[in-house]
């Protein structure tokens, strides 16, 4: 597809409503002013420091193979400290690599809806991360997309490529300044996991009550490739709809998604995960934990489509209700298109059980402490597939996010 064709398709989809989620108005948001580039993350204004930390970003860059920071619509910092790793804005990467254009809109269709179309027509940066063939970048790359001003419309296109037999670990945070009342984030992310490669992607969404968010993510996994996603959202958000999809196209391709959502205030979320098991022996696991309190409304979707021989997919979604004015809609779906495969799901929505509280109180906790232990336990998903140090750190980030709510 030529650039011209892509634009034409995007133009045609400009008013196309998304299949899911309320139709939000995306006109009227602005790109805002250009921000100056930084020499180090330490130079980032002090007032936003906590917002970065909350999104899992390590300002000292200690233990990171590279760092990327985009403020509103400007890439203000991008550095690589590890051989075999490439990290830069998508705009720069397209200038550097002529071949990269073949990866654009290959996993996510440009005309999927008006949000993808808008990213093509009004793109404001995004990141490009790539590990070279055979290079195992065990130290995590960190990237952050930060919104610091009102009315900003951040429209990023991210491309992540793990070349054959390479390994990439990414910690990415989307964060918004506490001062922002209303902003928009449209994020297209396309992941390519080549033969024998592995990507772990740990994403913390640190939004605010005025944020409208429409991520559009897809992953293509080749033979023996693995994609592991850990997603955490513990802050309020006005409206979030997403349905990341992993296409396990290769033989023995594996995808694993763990989603942890604590929905508070007037948050409205429609969040799903879909895996398409096309390759022979491909497998996927979708785990989600959703807590809804206050007036939060959450639709938790999951969908496994089995197409390949001996494909195996499992869904486990659990919801916990903490309020009579909240809502959880749990919708697991399985679709099988041949006989030799194995798909399963378990779903449950419940409350904090009285007898669990009493049991903990019998070990000395107060009712409040017991409730908090149960909620933490509920959200405690074993983080698998990450290098030990990163797993520990992810757990720490998770605990920090939890501390703010429980």
């Amino acid at each position: 597809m030529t650039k011209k064709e892509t634009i034409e398709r995007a133009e045609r989809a400009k008013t196309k409503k998304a299949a899911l989620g309320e139709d939000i108005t995306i006109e009227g948001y602005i790109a805002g002013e250009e921000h100056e580039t930084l020499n180090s993350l330490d130079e980032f204004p002090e007032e936003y420091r906590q917002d970065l930390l909350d999104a899992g970003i390590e300002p000292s860059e200690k233990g990171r193979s590279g760092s990327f920071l985009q403020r509103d619509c400007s890439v203000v910092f991008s550095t690589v400290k590890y051989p075999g790793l490439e990290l830069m804005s998508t705009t720069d990467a397209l200038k550097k690599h002529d071949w990269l254009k073949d990866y654009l809109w290959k996993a996510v269709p440009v005309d999927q809806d008006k949000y993808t179309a808008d990213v093509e027509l009004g793109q404001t940066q995004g990141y490009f991360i790539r590990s070279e063939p055979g290079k195992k970048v065990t130290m995590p790359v960190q990237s952050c997309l930060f919104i610091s001003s009102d009315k900003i419309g951040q429209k990023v296109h991210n491309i992540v490529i793990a070349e054959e037999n390479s390994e990439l670990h990414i910690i990415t945070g989307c964060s918004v300044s506490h001062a922002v009342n209303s902003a928009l984030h449209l994020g297209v992310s396309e992941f390519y996991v080549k033969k024998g490669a592995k990507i772990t992607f740990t994403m913390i969404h640190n939004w605010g009550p005025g944020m409208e968010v429409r991520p559009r993510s897809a992953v293509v996994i080749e033979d023996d490739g693995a994609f592991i996603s850990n997603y955490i959202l513990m802050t309020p958000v006005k409206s979030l709809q997403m349905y990341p999809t992993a296409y396990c196209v290769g033989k023995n391709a594996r995808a694993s998604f763990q989603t942890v959502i604590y929905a508070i205030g007037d948050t409205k979320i429609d969040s799903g995960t879909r895996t398409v098991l096309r390759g022979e022996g491909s497998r996927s696991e979708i785990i989600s934990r959703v807590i809804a309190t206050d007036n939060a409304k959450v639709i938790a979707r999951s969908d496994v489509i089995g197409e390949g021989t001996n494909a195996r997919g499992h869904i486990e979604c659990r919801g916990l209700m903490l309020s009579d004015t909240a809502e959880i809609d749990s919708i697991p779906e399985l679709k099988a298109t041949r006989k030799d495969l194995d798909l399963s799901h378990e779903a449950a929505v419940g409350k904090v059980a009285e007898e669990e509280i009493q049991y903990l109180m019998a070990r000395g906790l107060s009712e409040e402490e017991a409730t908090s232990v149960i909620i933490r336990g509920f959200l405690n998903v074993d983080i698998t597939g990450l290098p030990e140090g990163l797993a520990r750190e992810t757990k720490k980030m998770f605990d920090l996010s939890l501390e703010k709510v429980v």
Partner: protein
Amino acid sequence: MLEIKDLTVEVEGKEIIRNLNLNIEEGEVHVLFGPNGCGKTTLLMTLLGFPNYKVTGGCIMFKGVDITNLPTNERVKLGMGMSFQHPPEIRGVKLGDMVNIAQGRKEETIDEDVIALAKRLNISVEFLNRDVNLGFSGGEVKRSEILQLLAQSPDFIMFDEPDSGVDVENIELIGKIMSELLDRNKMPSKREKAGLIITHSGSIMRHIKADRAHVMLEGRIACSGMPDEITRNVMETGFERCVELCVRSKEVDAE
């Protein structure tokens, strides 16, 4: 240590325990026999202060404090502990976390001493990392409960059917550790802990020495006596016959 006076308890509007009296002194272990539904577990849950068990009469004194209306955790702070028969599963909360909670530790790592205790109960470090009670076998539940109690180290411990659903080998092990928890290995004058053991089958009594035994029928203590005698009577003749024998011997004593 524990003084129960004229206790009457209702569960969901139904009277389960009627005017029950029981004293357990420091250093004593009592065993409570009784058929299913006689109110044994209700008594333990009431002593622990679970909200579904409403005290409608009488009072419970523990270490000189009237605990009748105290919340569970306050009673635990005073030194009460319980080994549950059917503890709930809690997803994401590991046995190791429970041990730390019981010990009052804030850390996530598990105390070396606890790991040593766990070993004695044939509990591996991997097992400490399992979600508490989730998919545990009968014997595993008992050992997990006892490990938590070892970490908690209460002064007064209640055991709800520590021998139900446990194989012979584990009963011996459990009996041995219970004896330690209850200071049974010490000279009587050095014993500081006290306990109340509920048993339906009585099989745990082969592995732990009690000071006094009671038979509970229809919400009251129907007879009390020496553990060996009561255990034998219960085992050989059943609860009701045991009570009859008990009443008759009292009459004989009175004559």
